[in-house]
C-alpha cells in the first residue's frame, strides 16, 4: 500500500490554538435584569443577537479529537482465528488504535474531514464532502472507506465488539475496504429516507486501495489503468423506516465490482445486505434503554484460474443497552466456501464460525471499558478455541458526531 504523506504542522498549530481557546473561556455572566424583559415586551423584532457570544464556538479551527483504544488479549490456542485489522492477535497488551480526527467546514460549499492512525502512521480517511449541490446530490472525494455494508464505514471506537466481524477482514480488508475515490450520492425525493450511493476507486498503487477482494491495475495485462473496467465500483442503496418514535429499521443493499486479483482481466464481485433494527423507548422517557439487532450477509464471486469461486459470510448481533453506562452484546458469525476450487487456502477459507459475548461500561461519553469472550472454530482444526479481550477506549477534544 502506498505510504501517504501528511504535513502535521497545521494540525499541531490547530491543536495549540484550540487548547488556548478552551482555557480562555468567558467569565460567568451576570444574572438577567428583569427590566430587560419589560423592554423586550415593548420592542418589535430582534435586530441582532442579544448575546452573540453564546453561539457556537466562533473560532475557525477544525474540531480536533484524539481517540485511543488499548487492551489485553488472551487466546487458548496459538493458531487461533485471525482477528483482523485493529485487533489483538497475540497474547498480551496491545495498542489497538490511536486516531487523530479533525473536521471543519471549508466554505459554504464543502466540508473536510480527516482521520489519521498514529499507531502505524497511516491515513484512515481524508475527504471533502459537498454541502450545497442541487437535486439532493452529494459528492465525497479523497481517501475514504467504501460505503459497503454497515460495519465497513465504522471506525474502531464505534465498534460494539473489540474485534471486527470475521467477514470484514476476509472480504473487505484488514482494516477498511477503502481507497482514493469519488462518491456521488442522492437522497431521493420520497416520503421516507432512501439514498443511492455510487463510488469509484482508483486501483493503481498510488491510490492506496485497501481490499481483500479486488486486484490492482498492476494485475491487468498492461499493468496500468486502461479503461473503466480497471476501477473498483461500489454502490449502496440505504433505506430507513421510522415505525414509531421508538422503533427504527435501517436496511441496506451493497454491491462492489472490480478486477479479480488472481486472473488478469477477470472479475470479482461482492454483494451484501444489512439490516439494523432498534427499539429505544424514548416516548416513555426510558431512552437509556435500547435493543439493537444487526444482521449482515455477503456473497463473493471471484474468477480464479480455470474456475470461479463463491464464498459467503455474515453475522447476527444483538446489543442491549441496559442503562446509559452498561451495554451487553452477543454476536454469532460464519463464513464458508460455497463452490469452486480456490487458488489458495489463505484468501478462501473453509467453514469458520465464531460466537462472541461482550459487556461494555461507559463511565461517560468519552471513555469506555469492554470485556469480550470469543468461542470459535478455525478451518482444518478439530478443537474449538477461546479468547478473552479487555479493552479501554478514551477520547479527548471535540465531541464527535456519529451516524445512526
Amino acid at each position: 500500500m502506498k505510504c501517504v504523506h501528511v504535513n502535521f504542522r497545521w494540525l499541531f498549530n490547530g491543536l495549540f490554538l484550540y487548547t488556548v481557546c478552551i482555557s480562555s473561556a468567558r467569565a460567568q455572566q451576570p444574572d438577567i435584569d428583569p427590566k430587560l424583559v419589560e423592554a423586550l415586551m415593548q420592542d418589535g423584532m430582534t435586530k441582532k443577537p442579544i448575546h452573540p457570544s453564546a453561539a457556537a464556538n466562533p473560532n475557525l479551527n477544525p474540531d480536533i479529537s484524539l481517540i485511543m483504544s488499548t487492551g489485553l488479549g488472551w487466546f487458548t490456542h496459538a493458531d487461533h482465528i485471525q482477528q483482523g485489522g485493529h485487533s489483538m492477535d497475540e497474547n498480551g497488551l496491545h495498542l489497538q488504535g490511536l486516531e487523530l480526527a479533525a473536521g471543519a467546514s471549508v466554505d459554504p460549499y464543502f466540508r473536510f474531514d480527516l482521520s489519521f492512525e498514529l499507531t502505524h502512521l497511516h491515513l484512515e480517511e481524508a475527504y471533502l464532502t459537498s454541502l450545497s449541490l442541487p437535486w439532493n446530490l452529494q459528492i465525497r472525494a479523497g481517501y475514504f472507506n467504501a460505503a459497503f455494508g454497515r460495519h465497513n464505514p465504522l471506525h474502531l471506537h464505534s465498534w460494539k465488539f473489540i474485534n471486527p466481524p470475521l467477514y470484514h477482514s476476509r472480504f473487505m480488508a484488514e482494516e477498511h475496504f477503502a481507497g482514493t475515490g469519488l462518491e456521488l450520492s442522492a437522497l431521493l425525493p420520497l416520503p421516507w429516507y432512501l439514498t443511492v450511493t455510487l463510488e469509484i476507486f482508483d486501483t493503481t498503487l498510488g491510490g492506496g486501495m485497501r481490499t481483500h477482494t479486488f486486484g490492482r491495475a498492476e494485475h491487468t495485462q498492461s499493468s496500468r489503468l486502461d479503461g473503466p473496467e480497471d476501477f473498483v465500483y461500489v454502490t449502496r442503496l440505504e433505506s430507513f423506516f421510522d415505525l414509531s418514535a421508538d422503533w427504527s429499521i435501517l436496511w441496506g443493499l451493497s454491491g462492489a465490482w472490480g478486477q479479480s486479483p488472481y486472473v488478469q482481466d477477470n472479475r470479482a464481485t461482492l454483494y451484501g445486505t444489512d439490516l439494523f433494527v432498534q427499539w429505544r423507548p424514548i416516548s416513555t422517557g426510558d431512552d437509556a434503554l435500547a435493543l439493537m439487532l444487526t444482521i449482515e450477509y455477503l456473497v463473493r464471486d471471484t474468477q480464479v484460474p480455470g474456475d470461479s469461486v463463491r464464498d459467503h459470510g455474515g453475522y447476527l448481533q444483538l446489543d442491549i443497552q441496559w442503562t446509559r453506562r452498561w451495554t451487553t452484546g452477543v454476536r454469532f458469525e460464519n463464513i464458508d466456501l460455497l463452490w469452486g476450487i480456490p487458488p489458495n487456502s489463505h484468501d478462501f477459507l473453509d467453514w469458520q464460525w465464531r460466537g462472541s459475548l461482550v459487556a461494555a461500561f461507559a463511565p461517560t461519553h468519552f471513555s469506555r471499558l469492554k470485556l469480550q469472550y470469543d468461542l470459535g472454530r478455525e478451518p482444518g482444526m478439530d478443537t474449538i478455541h477461546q479468547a478473552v479481550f479487555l479493552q479501554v477506549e478514551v477520547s479527548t477534544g471535540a465531541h464527535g458526531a456519529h451516524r445512526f
Partner: protein
Amino acid sequence: MRISKIIVLLLTTMSLSAPSAKLRVVTTLPDFASLAEDIGGGRVQAQALILGTQNPHFVDPKPSFILAVNQADLLVCIGMQLEAGWLPVLLTQSRNHRVQVGSPGYLDASIFITPKEVPNQADRSMGDVHASGNPHYYTSPTEMFKVARGIYSKLVELDPEGRSQYTSSWTRFRDHYKSKLEQWHQKVAGLRGKPVVVYHTSWIYFLDWAGLRRLGALEPKPGIPPSAAHITRLIAATRSQGVYQVWREIYHPDRLSALFAKKVDARLIALPSMVGAAPDIQTVVDKFDRMIELVSETGRNPS
C-alpha cells in the same frame, strides 16, 4: 441506454419535487417548534426532532431526521454544544444549503439568551460541562420569551410576504405571554430563597428566575450518574437545611431521586423541561404553567 434513462428520470423527478407553500421549520427542541407554530400561524409547518420525553444530550441521528432537515427552510437549534453529538452529522448529510451553519436558515437560539454557568476553564474532568455555558436556558420563562422574539424576527426575514400575519400572531402571543409572566411571577413569589436539590444541573435558569436556591445536584458532576457515596454525602450536607423539593427530569432515573427525597424529607417532582414531556403539555405556556404548578406544591411525598 436503460441506465441513462433511469438517471434522467430520477433527476427530473428530483427537480420537480414541488416546494411546500408553507415555510418548513425544523427544530431540535419541541419548544421551538411550538413557538414557530404559535407565531407562524398557518404560514409555518413546524417539526421537532427531539421528543419532550427524551434526553437532548443523547439523541440518535436517525436518517429520517436527515430527510426532515433536507426539506427545512429554517432549522432552529438549542446551541451551546448541546446537540454536538448528533446535529452536525445531520446537517452535513442533509444536502440542504439553506440550513447550514451561517446560512439565513440556520438559527442557533442561544444567541438570544444570557448564558449562565459559563466555566472559566472547561475541562472534561469537570464532567460534561459546556464551554459556552449551561445550555438548559429553555427552562426559563424570560429566556424563552427572548427566543420567541428571535424566531419571530427570523420568520419575517425568511418570509417577508407574511410579515403582517407574523406580526399579528406575535402581538397576540406577546400579550398573552406577558399576562402569563405576571401570573407566574405572582405564583413563585412566595418561594423565594427556598432550597432545592436537582438531579442534573438543568434548572439554573429557572431557579434564578424564580429566586430559588440550588443546594446541590444528585449527579456529582454534570452528566456523571449519581454514586452511593455522593448521595450519602449530599444527604448529610442537606438534611438539616430543609430541602423544599427534589427535581428531576422525566428521563432521569427515579429510584435514587426517590431515595434521596425520602432521606431529606422533601417532595420529589418530575418537572417537565420540554414541551411534550406529558401529553397535555403542547405549548411553552402549558409547560411553564405545569412547572410552576408543580414547584408551588407544598408537602411531602405522597405515601
